[in-house]
Structure formats: structure tokens, C-alpha cells
């Protein structure tokens, strides 16, 4: 499974658990508009650490939280290299 598809599936799992409907996960989706709050992202990041094996936020000191879904995926893809 690619990193992107792992991320998509964690987002979808999370939405399913919380009975939320996500907008389409396109690269230009602004994360703030996804309907997921900071606690939700905290949970997703924590799960991605398990499934992808990296936590890009703790490995690099100056990581700003990504703005769009595309940035988010890219951050993981870069960190996993």
C-alpha cells in the first residue's frame, strides 16, 4: 500500500468512527475545511506513525503543520524516504 493510500485510509477510518462525512481528499483540500479538528489530527498522526512507520512532526524540528491534504501527503512521503 502506498503512503498516500495509507493516509487516505486513516482519514476515512477516522471519519467513519466519528460518523463524519469527509469532502473528497484531493491535493488542494484545505485541512481546516476537512471537518477534522486538532484532536482528530493528533489521533490520525499517531495512527500513521504505526502504519507508515514515521512521524514527520517529531523527526524534523521546524515542521509547520501542512495546509492542504497534498502538503500532508508530501510531508509523509519525504519523511519516509
Amino acid at each position, binding site marked *: 500500500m502506498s503512503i498516500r493510500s495509507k493516509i487516505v485510509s486513516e482519514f476515512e477510518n477516522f471519519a467513519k*468512527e466519528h460518523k463524519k462525512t469527509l469532502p473528497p481528499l484531493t491535493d488542494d483540500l484545505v485541512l481546516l475545511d476537512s471537518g477534522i479538528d*486538532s*484532536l482528530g*489530527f*493528533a*489521533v490520525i*498522526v*499517531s*495512527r500513521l506513525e*504505526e502504519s507508515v512507520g514515521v*512521524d514527520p*512532526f*517529531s523527526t524534523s524540528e521546524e*515542521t509547520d*503543520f501542512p495546509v492542504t491534504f497534498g502538503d500532508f501527503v508530501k510531508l509523509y512521503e519525504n519523511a519516509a524516504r
Partner: protein
Amino acid sequence: MRRDNWQTIAQLLGESLRNTACPSDHCFYSIDRVVRYVDILNGSSLAGQRDQFTGRSVLIHTNGQLAAAIALIELDGRARRMILATPDVHGENLSAIIEEAEVDAVITDHESPETSHIDLRVRCSPSLIPAPKGETVAHRTEWILLTSGTTGTPKLVIHTLKSLTAAIGASSGPEEPITWATFYDIRRYGGLQFYLRAVLAARSLVLSDKDEALEAHLTRLNAQGATHITGTPSHWRRVLWSPLAKSITPSYVRMSGEIVDQAIIDNLRATYPGVPIGHAYAATEAGVGFTVNDCLEGFPAEFIDNTRNGVTMKIVDGSLRIRSPGLAAGYLGHKNVMVLDDEGFLDTGDLIERRGDRCYFMGRKGGIINVGGLKVYPEEVEAVINRHPDVRISRVRGKKNPIVGFIVTADVVVAADNTPGQETDRIKREITELCRKELALHKVPAAVNFVSSLPVTSGGKLVRANA
């Protein structure tokens, strides 16, 4: 127990034995020996050197609990001070204790480099040799207990026989057949309470042993007829998983030392139908706060701001404070100071939440997980997880998180096979659903990890990284 005329534990044991129909029936049961109380009062385990301990600061440093159990009876009223060390204390910590407590005598059953320089060093033997009764009372002996924190040097908590027995009522009817047993080590506050209950009333006591497997211990409890059995919730959870759980037939089950949740009470009731189940709040420094026997978690709110059995409790900033004759007198040495507030209350650091007419323990002040500025008490989440029928024990901890600082995760031991599969997926999903139903969202574990076991301290408490 009012004792204006101060008496030693040996004198009190002697009195109780005289009121017993068959004095020679009552004894300590250890893993490999039975020692009768009458023989302890008429003998000595101290190689004929008992008199030399008069006025000394004595480190009791034995592997086995039996040797310590006998030494306490021999030395109370004779030694200036008795330090109850558990076998897990060694190295620098032990050396620091020896210095802080001005130890000038040691009772031991093994070689240890830290004590080899002490001039009076006696190897004790549970094979008693006849000795004259030590009727002279030379000292109001200090009983020094060690705190059981997981890091650093243990603190030396000063008690006396009087403060230790403040919560122990007059002995029950002379013929009531009680045999006490405790999963605790009697050298820790929780275990010492039952040692004293047993000895002062001349009732038999079954001692646990750190090298004894649980199954063997349960078999022994059954064979030695234990009726009143005590331990931490963690001890009892282990008992309940055992195929031999039903081989013991207690007439009283009691828990203390950790937060007691409804799940463990209900599981004990299901396993031992009709048996009274009590839980108590006690701490080494604060003494015994109260005992609850209504089979509900928490305790009645009317206990707060009231004095019951000499114990007064209040809540300040969410934390339980206690004033009682069972409070320790302080710590030995200058490194630690036991602080009481203006009204003489000790802050226990145990956090309480009041809901209606009941108060609940939420956890320790230092144990809170901060999720994006919101507090989470691990124990509160564990209590919910433990309600799942497949969960044996759980531990909730904070995991560093880049977005909210910390996030809640749970380590869970389940009854089922731990290998990933549909069964574990189902249990994980159910645990998360249960938490989501019962708890605020920030308290719901982000991850539920299945583990094969969780570490428990020698004091029978779940190991917490921040404890």
C-alpha cells in the same frame, strides 16, 4: 484501639493469646514453615543475641517475610528503631538508608556488601531457640517504612505501633475463626496493616513469598485455610485470571493500594458469590483513611468534611487531605519534610471527583496526561476499558504528540489470543466504542495496543512511567 498504657506488640499478642481457647493453633504460615505464636513469645530467632539490640537502630533486611515477621515481635520495645527493608532495596539506595537511619545493627538471612561493615550483624533463623521473655520495655520503638516510588531513594517514613494500629478496632469475638492472608509484603504499609491485625488479635497469618508462583500460592491459601484475603486490585486481577481462582474460599476479600474500579468489584463478586468485598484507602504517610463495604467503587461523599473513626478528610484543589492519629510522624533525615497544612492535614496527592453523593478517585496529581490543555486521568480511562468483558487489565499512558502535546494510548491485556485477527480487531473496536460512549473525546485512546502482560511493582501496583 485506645492504649494509654503503652504496650509492645509482644505484650499485646500475649494478652490476646491468653484469651484464645487454643493458643497453640495460631501461627505464621510461610512458604516452607509454620511458626506458632506461643513459640515466638517463648523463643528467639536472633542467635542468642537479642539483648544486644536494646537501644539500637536495627535494619531488618531479610529475603523472607517470616524472619521479619518474627523479628518485629522480638524487637518492638527493645530497639530504638526498626527499619523494614524489602529485598528489592540494595546498592546505593540501601547504603543511603543505612546512613540516614543511623543503622547500627542488622538482622539478615543473606550476605550483602552494603551491610557487612555494621558491627552488630545477626543472621536470624526461624528455627527458634528458647529464650527468656523480654518483659522490660526499654524504648517506644520507631517503625520505619520505606516508600515504594519507582525512582530515587525511598523515603523513610516514621511510624509507631500506635500510629500503625490507629485504624485497627478492638478484636472481634474471641472465637471468630479468622485466618488472614495478604498478597502484599508485610514490610510495606498495606501488608503491615494485616500483619498487625493478625498478630494483635492472635489470629493466624499466611505470608506470601516473592518466589512462589501464583498457582502454588493459591493452593497454599486453600490448604492453610485463609479466610480474610487482601491485596491490590492488580493482585486480585491476576488471581481472577488463574484457573485456580475458585480453589480459594475466602469469607472476606479486601483491596487497597490502588484505585478500585467497579469492574474488579463485580468480577470478584461473580467469582466469590455472597462473599463481602471491601476496599480501603490507605497510604504509607497518611495511614488508613477509610474502608468501604458496599461493593461500589469510590466512597460516600459524606466522608468528606467529617470525622469518622478519628480520621478527618477534606478536599483542597481536588486533592484528598487527611488528618488522623494514623498519620506518620514525618520522614527520617533532612532530605525530605512531611508538610502538614495549618489544620494538621496531609495532602495525599490523590485526586477526587465528586459526582452526586459519591466521591471517586481520579488518579495521582503527577499522573495526569495533558491533551492539548485538557486533563486526562489514566485511571479514569482504565476503569472504562476494564469494563469490557475480554479485558484482564489495562494501562493508559500519554504518548507524545506533535499536535496536542500528548495523546492517550492504552496497553491492554486481553483474555483472548493476542495474535492479530478478526477477534482482536473486534475487541479493539469495542473498547474504542465503549470509551467514546463513556468519556469525553480527548480521553478516548487514539491507539489500543494489545500486550501479553503489564508490569506490576513488588508492592503489587501497576508500574506507571510517571509514578
